[in-house]
């Protein structure tokens, strides 16, 4: 396919919200992430860090802290409630008022029998974890001043609590405070301000590590209550701490966006006495690091600048592979934009609203490259804008637009709504079904639902696609052949014929030959699959950094062929070109992609959200002295 007219859309003001809390479940290798808008995301670390589940937020809900108990996820927030989540149906199961004012933190003991929460009124409340519910057990000694952070000793007998200007150590069986560790205030002007102990960690050798608002990471002896070592790491706050599983390393996140690692090292080799030494500094954030988790092979951090960073610890890897590369997750691994191919409409999904845009006509002034495959055009002007304000406080899970542009559907946790669009009028039909993803074909509406187990159920047609080990990240049903194209989180590609109830020949051939390594090494999943309405052989799919047109009529590339061959092709003559063609045609001209779709008039719609635009909308970071300023 020679040239395409491109609608380059940059007016989707998608703004992810800041990451507030994080909890890693080492048993299931799932990371739970809470954002400022109250949404919870679950990442599967065994499956290429894929964002497996999203529990949409709610206006009234705020989450300060997350906690796994076995496979159950609890959260607590400043609204004073503890909530448990239903990870099957992706909604809160129940929430419980703790009657202690805003809750700053929630933790569980290692046995998973008890939960402790730290409240604004100075109480540490213990809850018993029951089969289906939790139940209030008792209060520990009430303190003056709020409880900001908590950490349970691995044996379960003691709890360290970070407060204002001090750390308390509680004896759990009696409920009495046994130690009072006073934390110094900052120097200079901040002397009059109280020090907030943002985070504490209680290690099994009764060492307490604390991070506070004076920028110190302090190591205390929990038995005697004495200060062992002070590391002044920043001029601002130390906001988060995380301990590795073997307790040989602690990471601290600061307001400067740095993550600082401390290691428990013997100063002289082959000796037993060890001390905490500051070692590495990672700087992957521009703003506060609010949430941290040190997992087996990596340090996971997130904060105000909204992206999740997985920084692998290189010493844990034997060789360089795509798993040992730095990974930044900026966009959700699902589709926020849907496109009506015939009508030229775009639907943008925000947490609280939907926006409908119509693509304008091009003025055709773009310069023409005879050899280029795509022709760029000036950014398309929007013609009409329709705004749906979501009613109620539940946020939108997903939304879709029919390709004729006549139907629009969205769902929240509790409801699905379908609207009929007539230029500017809409008729609403409601239907109650909680669904994570909707896809529409032209005439009838197939509602597809995928489960986390990797099987795909197609309602109405009643066939089950064979189970695959990795989550599907995107799929689409071909409008003419009714083939289902699926892309999984591990970048594998399948085509399934719904009619014949088996994989197509092309898919089998592809699996037999294997995908190119360059394709497999990409670190963002494909989030959208669409088809060329004119040429049934062409499948269009995209991830964050590229989009790809797969031409099933062309030969598949083997490992030796050059994968990104567009530049080479351009330099070749017309005669030589066909011999170098292969099925994957990849374009990296557009970056930070949210949606790529082919319209019926063979023009390409590209929705970009430049990361720079997101960064510029963030609040100003803390002031830092820069060299030569």
């Amino acid at each position: 396919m020679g040239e395409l007219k491109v609608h380059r859309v940059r007016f989707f003001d998608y703004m992810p919200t800041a990451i507030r809390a994080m909890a890693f479940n080492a048993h299931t290798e799932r990371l739970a992430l809470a954002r400022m808008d109250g949404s919870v995301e679950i990442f599967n670390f065994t499956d290429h860090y894929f964002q497996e589940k999203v529990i949409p937020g709610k206006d009234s809900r705020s989450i300060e802290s997350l906690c796994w108990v076995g496979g159950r996820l609890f959260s607590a927030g400043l609204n004073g409630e503890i909530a448990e989540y239903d990870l099957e149906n992706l909604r809160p199961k129940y929430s419980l008022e703790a009657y202690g004012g805003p809750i700053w933190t929630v933790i569980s003991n290692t046995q998973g029998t008890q939960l402790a929460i730290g409240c604004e009124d100075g109480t540490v409340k213990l809850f018993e974890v029951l089969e289906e519910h939790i139940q209030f057990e008792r209060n520990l000694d009430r303190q003056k001043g709020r409880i900001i952070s908590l950490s349970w000793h691995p044996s379960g007998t003691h709890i360290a609590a970070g407060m204002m200007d001090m750390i308390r150590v509680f004896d759990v069986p009696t409920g009495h405070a046994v130690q009072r560790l006073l934390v110094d205030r900052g120097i200079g002007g901040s002397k009059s301000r109280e020090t907030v102990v943002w985070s504490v960690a209680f290690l099994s050798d009764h060492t307490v590590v604390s991070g506070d608002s004076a920028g110190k990471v302090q190591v205390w002896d929990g038995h005697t209550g004495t200060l062992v070592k002070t590391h002044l790491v920043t001029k601002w706050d130390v906001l988060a701490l995380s301990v590795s599983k073997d307790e040989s390393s602690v990471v601290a996140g600061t307001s400067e966006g740095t993550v600082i690692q401390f290691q428990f090292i013997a100063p002289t080799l082959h000796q037993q006495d060890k001390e905490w030494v500051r070692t590495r500094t990672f700087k992957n954030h521009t703003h506060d690091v609010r949430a941290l988790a040190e997992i087996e092979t990596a340090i996971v951090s997130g904060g105000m600048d909204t992206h999740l960073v997985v920084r692998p610890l290189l010493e844990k890897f034997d060789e360089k592979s795509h798993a040992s590369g730095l990974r930044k997750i900026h966009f959700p691994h699902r589709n926020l934009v849907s496109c009506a191919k015939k009508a030229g409409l775009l639907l943008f999904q925000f947490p609280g609203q939907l926006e409908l845009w119509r693509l304008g006509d091009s003025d055709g002034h773009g310069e023409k490259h005879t050899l280029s495959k795509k022709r760029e055009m000036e950014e398309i002007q929007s013609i009409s804008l329709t705004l749906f304000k979501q009613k109620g406080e539940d946020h939108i899970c997903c939304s879709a637009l029919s390709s004729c542009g006549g139907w629009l559907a969205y769902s929240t946790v509790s409801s699905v709504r379908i609207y009929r669009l007539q230029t500017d009028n809409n008729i609403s039909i409601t239907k109650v079904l909680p669904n994570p993803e909707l896809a529409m074909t032209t005439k009838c509406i197939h509602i597809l639902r995928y489960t986390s187990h990797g099987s795909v159920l197609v309602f109405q047609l009643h066939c089950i696609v064979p189970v695959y080990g990795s989550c599907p990240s995107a799929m689409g049903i071909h409008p003419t052949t009714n083939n289902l194209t699926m892309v999984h989180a591990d970048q594998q590609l399948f085509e399934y014929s719904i009619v014949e109830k088996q994989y197509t020949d092309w898919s089998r051939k592809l699996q037999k030959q294997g995908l190119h390594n360059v394709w497999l090494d990409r670190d963002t999943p494909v989030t959208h699959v669409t088809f060329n309405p004119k040429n049934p052989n062409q499948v269009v799919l995209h991830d964050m950094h590229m989009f790809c047109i797969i031409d099933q009529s062309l030969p598949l590339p083997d490992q030796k062929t050059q994968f990104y061959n567009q530049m080479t092709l351009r330099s070749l003559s017309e005669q030589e070109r066909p011999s170098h063609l292969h099925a994957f045609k990849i374009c990296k001209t557009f970056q930070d992609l949210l949606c790529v779709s082919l319209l019926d008039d063979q023009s390409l719609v590209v929705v970009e959200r430049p990361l720079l635009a997101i960064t510029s909308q963030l609040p100003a970071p803390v002031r830092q002295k820069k060299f030569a300023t």
Partner: protein
Amino acid sequence: MVEHAEIRMVRRGGSKINFREPVITNDSRFLLCAAGESVNVYSTSTEEFVHDLQGHTDLVTGVVLNPSNHLQVYSCSADGTVRLWDFMDGILIKTFIIGYPIYSIYVSEKHGGVVFVVVPMANYKSSELFQLVAVHLPRSGDQEVEARELSAVLCDVSPHPGAVSFGREGEYIAATKGLQLEVFFFKKQKSYRFSLKSGMKKGVKNAFTCVSCHPKEDCIATGHADGKIRLWRNFNQKKEYTYTTLHWHHGAVNTLCFTPEGTNLLSGGIESVLVHWHYTQENQKDFLPRLGAAITHIAVSPDGSLFCTSHSDNKITIIQSCVKVSAIIQGLVKGDGVWTDLIIDPRSKALVLNGKPGHLQFYSLHRDKQLYNLDIVQQEYINEEGLDQFEVVKAAFDARGDWLATVEERRKKGAELEINLKLWAYDKLTQSFVLNTTVTAPHEDRITGMFFSPSPETTMLVTTSLDDHFKAWLLADHSDTKEGFWSCDFVGGYHLLKPGCCSYSADGSLLAVGFQEVVTVWSPASWELLTTLSQPPGAIRDLCFGRLSCSKYLLGTSTKNQLCCWNLLTCSLEWSTPMDVSLLQADPLSENMAAFCSQSGSSDLFVFKPSEPRPLYSQKALCTGKVQHAVFAPRDQMLESCEERTQWLNRSQLYFITQDMDLLTFSTKTEEDRLLASSKQLMVDDSVAVTPFYLLLGKHRRQQLEKQEALTNPMAERTQLPQGSIAIKELLHTPAHVLPSASFLCAMFVRSLLVSRSSAREEKAEEEMESEKEEEDSEGEADPRLGESAAWAPSEEFGAPALTKAQERELRKVKTFDHSWLSSLLDS
């Protein structure tokens, strides 16, 4: 040509003292540093040069204290030997011949009798591969020993001495090269390698520049090209190693050093700031800024009280208690090159050349010491690589030394050249030069030559430039201002040719300017073009008028290997000879001329009179490379040599700088003898630096001090009585290594106490007698003690009469016999 034994080429001062890390002795009194082919010993308190350890025949490449004897020092050299010295007395104790050129030396207390040296790999003589080998020093009594027992420790190490360091108690050795750190454990005989990514794309320069190990803990500090310092720990594991990064330097970290207790880490680089990291609290650091030039080495005294830093401008700074600069040892500054020629200041007879960036240095050749720096550019120098900053490129003095002219220029790629001509007047009150006139952009292009008129009546300056002109500048007198300023008097040119050089005749009546292939002779009085001389082919490179009896000759050299001599009376070519003369220099005090010729990669020297066909002196293969700068320096004392070959050195001395920036000169035997005598004179048994002040006052003060001690502490003296005898004193003060064996000494010592084979009673009496004698002596000095000593006087009185006169005589005889061997030993 026959080699003349009596004229020798010597390095006379100006050697590089910042070449290798200096060493501070255990008592912090001396600083030792490699300087050319010798090791210089300086006093840390007075910054005075004490003496040097001479013996190596090539560049000294390392100095370390002997860990088993703190009064000895090892030095290694490119001549393939390791030498052991007693630095207090400047005695060479032993020479170990290794056989390969040595690039650096390391020792450790744990490895006794072994030194580690970096030598080129044996199989790869031509390539730049080096290995670290352990040398077992053979224990033999000979002065010169061959140490052939070498065992390789690490292969492929950097020859840079900062790239290898011993770890805690010598258990391991860390070496860096390129992007790799290698740690070798001696016990396990196992080495670990850690590599960093090159990371060029992000502007990260990870290459290692230096390494230093913590003396008490297992921590290795490495410096990097991008200014980072990494502290490595857990390096006995392949994967679980870890490091902390410290970052303050913006340029490369040149050197790192832990203090002896390991509480602090010192680092330095191009910023010329000594950074002082607290080991346990990495974010706390102290700075000692404005040290003048980039820091190249840091050394700490063994007790940690003194730091010393070497700087790129050939300077060693001694820093007391982390904060105070207590002494500066400044050598001849040889930066990237000598832009100005070598000039002699007519007043101070000092050598003048560009020194620190933007400065002129005045360097006393006789005392081998920098006198002072004159700030020419008067702009802040920015310590940053890759900046184009003003440099002093030309300087000239007038005949009496009243005026100094300097040219500074800033070369910028692609931008216009900035040139300033400055004229400085000598101020008698302040004894220095004061800026009189600044001419911005005196020429449109670079200035190729600048000379003052030698005539005493007029002060005139001539500058030639590549902009096809030469200009004459005159001091204009203005009645209204007290002091005149300089202005342009004449602009001359010749057929739009570029003037390359110019020269004044000795009396200032003629000016010769070379315009490419044509020599023009002008009269400065009327600015009339008198004549043109041309001797094609080749552009004129150098012009020189003859002096005294030869003043009718004008000599010129051309690029086409011609040395021509014109007779100015006949305006014709007197003679010419085919020679590739790179430099022609006239002696201002005689009619002699020195011509340096470059021939097949090395330089030859010819000293001749223009009137005579035969050279006075010639020396083939002076040094490798071209000689670009030379100067005749007048002697302060005339030599009385009558021999023909050395006569030319009688009035002045020829100094020249080789391509490797070595300052060399010629010396005769008589001169060396004289120098030797004067240095002997200065040699005093006490090892404190000898200054004239000390010679005047020190002795006197010491006597006073002794007297005082005797007064305040009589008991102490009494217990030290045996030391009073001269024999024992000499015995104790002779260096240990020249003494005979202990058994022999013991017998001698006992015999010195004995008088004869008489009874024990007599012996005792004698001893008491001796002590009494001492007593009496001190009593003679200090009367007030009499009353005090009366308390034990009776016993003395008891013994005293027992001694007869004859016995006393015998005692004296024994005494004189007794140390005769010692004095004979000392004399030999």
